[in-house]
């Protein structure tokens, strides 16, 4: 009996045949990788198996595939671990989702990933005349972007993205994480226009569904979703960009409602979100009214089912100690700088040995 069985999805568009599954038995030690398994199958049984790989050390990002339904680097996944997560003992290896397949496990990175990375203008756009020699950047000002710089462009986050699954136009986690790499770079002179562009695009930062799928699969802990949230934070908090997608409105509405009531007044969240955070504007602005009308059937259904009572929709009680919540808001929101603790940077011990604490350098 073989040590491991790999069930590989085969597809060759040039053959005109539909995709099919093929199983391969491989004898390898448990600490060897899924990539080793695929390469062994290719060497010993079928030389036509298509897979990209290069460094075999989780650096080049070439071999991202889906293993038992979860996107990962094949070279960075042990056979023993893969089998532990396998159904019926077979390790299932497929090409990444959200990409056109070129052959077997090889996907078209140009069509999705690189196209989207290009979209965010992935190079510095400094302002003014360049210095005589190089730009001098204090190391501490670059710490903020080290996490986004760790990306190896493997596309695992793109393959796992649940927004892309239903909206192929979404700029996506990898490209947006790359965007933060430049938004957070002190040498870049186009911060506001970059943020304006990404906030206004209907498939930009406000098309991320906050599902953590990219965070879960990233082999380098870039946490693309966190970078997207930082883009949102910079767009709304630092530049007050009022986008057409209700991103600014939704954040403002939610934050303001908790400051006012302590818990969420759901009936006001939707109209305020459509009205850039304002209940009055939501009923005067034609675009907001149009959106409210679209949302009306759900509200009516909620009322009809008894899920939502008219009283509850109109009236929301404040917490008994709401003045304390307001005080906390005031103390924190009045600070000149936003305080952030990024565990990627300071380490999971909180960096107490170094006393490290990352601070947002922007005015609230």
């Amino acid at each position: 009996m073989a040590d491991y069985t790999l069930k590989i999805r085969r597809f060759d568009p040039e053959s005109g045949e539909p995709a099919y599954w093929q199983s391969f038995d491989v004898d390898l030690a448990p600490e060897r990788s899924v990539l080793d398994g695929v390469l062994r199958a290719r060497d010993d049984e079928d030389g036509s198996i298509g897979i990209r790989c290069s460094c075999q050390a989780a650096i080049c990002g070439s071999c991202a595939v889906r293993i038992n339904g979860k996107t990962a680097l094949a070279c960075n996944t042990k056979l023993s671990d893969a089998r532990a997560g396998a159904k019926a003992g077979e390790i299932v290896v497929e090409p990444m989702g959200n990409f056109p397949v070129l052959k077997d496990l090889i996907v078209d990175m140009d069509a999705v990933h690189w196209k989207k990375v290009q979209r965010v203008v992935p190079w510095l756009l400094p302002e003014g005349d360049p210095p005589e020699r190089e730009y001098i950047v204090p190391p501490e000002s670059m710490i903020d972007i080290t996490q986004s710089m760790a990306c190896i462009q493997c596309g695992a986050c793109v393959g796992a993205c649940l927004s892309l699954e239903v909206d192929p136009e979404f700029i996506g986690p990898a490209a947006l994480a790359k965007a933060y790499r430049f938004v957070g770079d002190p040498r870049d002179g186009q911060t506001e226009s970059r943020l304006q562009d990404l906030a206004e695009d209907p498939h930009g930062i406000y098309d991320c569904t906050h599902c953590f799928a990219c965070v879960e699969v990233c082999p380098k802990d870039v946490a693309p979703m966190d970078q997207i949230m930082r883009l949102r934070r910079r767009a709304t908090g630092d530049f007050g960009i009022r986008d057409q997608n209700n991103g600014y409105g939704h954040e403002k509405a939610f934050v303001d409602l908790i400051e006012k009531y302590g818990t969420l007044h759901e009936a006001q969240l939707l109209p305020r979100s459509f009205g850039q955070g304002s209940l009055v504007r939501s009923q005067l602005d034609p675009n907001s009214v149009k959106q409210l009308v679209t949302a009306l059937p759900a509200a009516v259904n909620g009322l009809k089912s008894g899920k939502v009572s008219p009283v509850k929709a109109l009236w929301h009680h404040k917490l008994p100690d709401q003045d304390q919540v307001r005080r906390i808001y005031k103390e924190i929101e009045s600070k000149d700088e936003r305080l952030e603790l990024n565990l990627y940077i300071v380490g999971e011990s909180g960096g107490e040995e170094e006393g490290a604490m990352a601070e947002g350098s922007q005015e609230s």
Partner: protein
Amino acid sequence: MKVAYWPGCVSRGFTPELHGSMALVAPKLDIEMVELDRANCCGAGVIAEHNQELVDTLNARTFAMAQGVEGAAGMMNICSTCQGAQTECRERLDASTDYRSGVNEHLKPEGLSYESNGDWWNKNFLWLLVEEIGLDTLRERVVRPLEGLRIAPFYGCYIVRPTRRLGYADHPERDRYMEMVIEAIGANPVDYAGKHKCCGFPLITMNRTTSLRQAGRHLADAIDADADCLVTPCPLCHLNLDLQQPDAAKYVERDLDIPVLHLPQMVGLALGLEPKELGMNKHVVKTGDVQRKVAALAAA
């Protein structure tokens, strides 16, 4: 078991049947809930977008109140989103003494302080049910096994990802707990593509099309897998899957008509509670077929 109970905003707002059903189910499982009626919203990921220190302080305030409940083993919530949002804050608060001290300074005027303590837990009812109450106890308490009922679990993102933060190293089966509970009450768990995916709720105000396509696809997948209903531990997922279901049908261009139960409702049915007292008449997608099947089981 005594717990500090954080019901969240939505269970007391647009899904009152969730809060009501949990109140009925708890005594049947010997859970004594001390509700945190002064605690505030977890931020649901949105306040975290706005200001990290603010959301961490608001949740530290809730944790401190929960830790002040005498004799409580930990804090229980009934919302996947609360679970994820609060765990994220707790991770930062536990990581740094300096940071935690700064946050606690904001709580001083209320006489509150969040103490980092590895023994203290914050758990969704699903986790508490499996890890603290135990499936054997649940099986013993079942008076109406839901045999023959095909139930599709829908977890909600915040309770399954990221696994590193959510304690999956110690509890690797947390992404199967729903199936385990469904089996324990005698029903059949339905496997389908969408069970760990996103319901789309966070996008409902920002990209309605993406949001409702997501919801619609998962509902369609569950229907195609021959499920009688879905069940979820997340009221926000419930809103997109139930309240928005008629609209979601338009976005995926097919008929959708599948009830979406809250986890305590499903458990409550098996424990002998009646559909009406569990608020199953307060759903947009009518639960009549499920109720009839349950009634037939009782009559059999």
